[in-house]
């Protein structure tokens, strides 16, 4: 990229690239909220969340014991047939994000609406960003209502209001979940830009999701095995590093650190590091935050970079179908 050319291009166009952004956002959000696809999915998510929260609340109520983070346990406790709320989220949120994103651009091509919309006084930038933001806001609303359900069920069944730290931790968890869903959203949108057929992009998105959700641990083991030279510790470190490429791993670790305040470190801990450590004492909120900062940064940076990639590919595409 030559700098000169760049400046010229930059100087060339006038007007804000964000013109019409909020119109796009509002229209897309209305589409998502009104669409039968999202309604079904949100219904499914709310039902499973309610189920898992209800059963974990009962399990917690039955187990007598003092716990300063009893509301957080609502998120993480799993009762035998049902997985915990967070594992449900780890599973369903990518699904929702992919559903929102996989046909966002190619459907505009297929419906032949793209050139019509872009002939209005807006830039493509606003269309792509608007679609991304609209999906993100839709997910935010879904997650926020889920959060309220958890707190509400906690109040109703346990009779305990959440402490300030619990609210903070669960809200940060919400933000992290949003970043995690952002990854799947932007990946689905990237495929929707690359592939003209929504079915293809949906399939590609789900393939990526399946790769990380199911097969990544196997692949991790295989690849780490190739670097076998480092001995057991080296192998474990390699395995950890590779597994952290997966957003699922990052999200899982973030969840662990935020919702189990006793978590002191993520990943490999040597015995020497544990010497003299007072185990079981909860980590202060800010230290937990510091613990997940790299993970959160990774997720966020990935979202931004994938957005940039999607953006560049979309901008370079021809408008005509």
């Amino acid at each position, binding site marked *: 990229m030559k700098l000169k050319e760049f400046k010229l291009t930059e100087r060339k*166009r006038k007007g804000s690239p964000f013109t019409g952004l909020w119109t796009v956002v509002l229209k897309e959000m209305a589409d998502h909220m009104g669409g039968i696809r999202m309604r079904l999915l949100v219904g499914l998510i709310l039902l499973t969340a309610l189920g898992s929260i209800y059963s974990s609340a009962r399990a917690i109520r039955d187990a007598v014991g003092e716990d300063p983070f009893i509301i957080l346990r609502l998120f993480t406790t799993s009762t035998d047939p049902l997985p915990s709320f967070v594992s449900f989220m780890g599973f369903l949120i990518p699904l929702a994000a992919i559903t929102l994103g996989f046909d966002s651009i190619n459907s505009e091509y297929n419906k032949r609406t793209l050139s019509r919309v872009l002939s209005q006084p807006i830039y493509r930038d606003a269309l792509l960003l608007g679609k991304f933001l609209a999906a993100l806001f839709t997910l935010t609303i879904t997650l926020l209502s889920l959060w309220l359900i958890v707190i509400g069920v906690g109040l109703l069944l346990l009779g305990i209001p959440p402490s300030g730290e619990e609210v903070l931790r669960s809200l940060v968890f919400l933000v992290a979940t949003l970043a995690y869903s952002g990854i799947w959203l932007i990946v689905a949108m990237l495929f929707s830009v690359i592939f003209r057929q929504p079915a293809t992009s949906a399939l590609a998105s789900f393939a990526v999701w399946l790769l990380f959700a199911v097969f990544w641990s196997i692949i991790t083991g295989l690849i780490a095995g190739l670097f076998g030279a480092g001995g057991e510790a080296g192998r474990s470190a390699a395995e950890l590093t590779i597994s952290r490429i997966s957003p699922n791993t990052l999200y899982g670790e973030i969840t662990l650190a935020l919702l189990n305040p006793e978590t002191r470190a993520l990943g490999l801990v040597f015995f020497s590091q544990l010497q003299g450590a007072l185990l079981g004492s909860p980590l202060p909120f800010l230290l937990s935050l510091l613990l997940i900062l*790299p993970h959160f*940064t990774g997720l966020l940076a990935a979202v931004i970079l994938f957005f*940039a990639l999607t953006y560049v590919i979309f901008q370079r595409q021809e408008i005509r179908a």
Partner: protein
Amino acid sequence: MRRFIILLTLLTTPLFAQDYRGLSLSTDYPSIITSKTDIITLSLTVKNYKLPPQRVDLSILRAPTAWETVFVGNGNLISSVFVAPDESADAELWIDPPDNTPEGSYNFIIRATGRNNTFDLPITINIGKSLPRRLKIEPEFPSLIGTPTTDFSYRLSINNESSQDSLVNLRAQAPEGFQVTFKKAYRNQEITTVPIKAGKTEKVDMEVKPPANITAGKYEIAVLASTEGTSAETLLTMEITGQPKLKLTGPEGRLSGSATAGREKAFKLTIENTGSAPASDIEFSSWEPSNWKVEFNPKSIELLPAGEKKEVTALVTPSQKAIAGDYSVTFRANARDASNSVDFRITVRTSTLWGIVAVIIIAAALLVVVLAVMRYGRR
């Protein structure tokens, strides 16, 4: 051998005894002096000397009026015993004097009646006189030396020199602040009274705890053993020598603090001598997780007079690889005669460097977007 003994017995026994044929009725103390009018129990022995086996009837030949007597054998009322040749049989005679029996001497005659023989045993019971009570208390070691933290333990022998069982009260007079407890020797229960049978001796341990802030010197403790009508006293001394006592405390009395991994952090500790003697050669040491570094400034203190305090700085460097959260570190002060340690909870903060890196990474990612927008933007 047995024959030889029998022979010897034959040779030495007076002829009378040797030749005696008939019955005998005996008791250890045929004349008793008592002050009480409780039942008096006499043990009786009936012996058959070279007579054929026979039944022997027991009876009271003479007794003061209104006194009741019964023979008791093996828990039953009896009136006779059976004796084989050269054997004896035991029985008891219970004598119940009537209430308000006046002082005086009362005589009884008890008769044992065999087939052909009889034997009379006269008995005298004197009502009114008794032995005076007397207690004696004697320490094993009347003088002990120790430090304020020593447990002083005196062993006392208390002797009931009277004919009656007594309940003895124990009391000690010690300087203020001293804690005195009595225990029966080899037992753990604290006691204030000890029952002592007539004529017997009991051993009692007296434990004394001087107050912690006592100054060196000689102290006296008086021990009083008392029972109805009499008492005994003894004086014990304890010499308390001075002792230093160290107390290590954290900054403003707190026992926790925070530090950043890999970064040195200073904690201001206070060392205080709360003892009664100056502490000398105080050395500081610590127990910390591996790869941690703890240094003290100053490293040692030559002399710390009693009642004075000094500040010590502990420079703690958590391991570079320490994980976030709480660790325990022990600071210790060792003097010649005293030591103290304190467990300090250190909350390790991981480096905030990651925060900066995170900001840089996000900024870099955003820069990519900005470049993309500049190059491909606004189409």
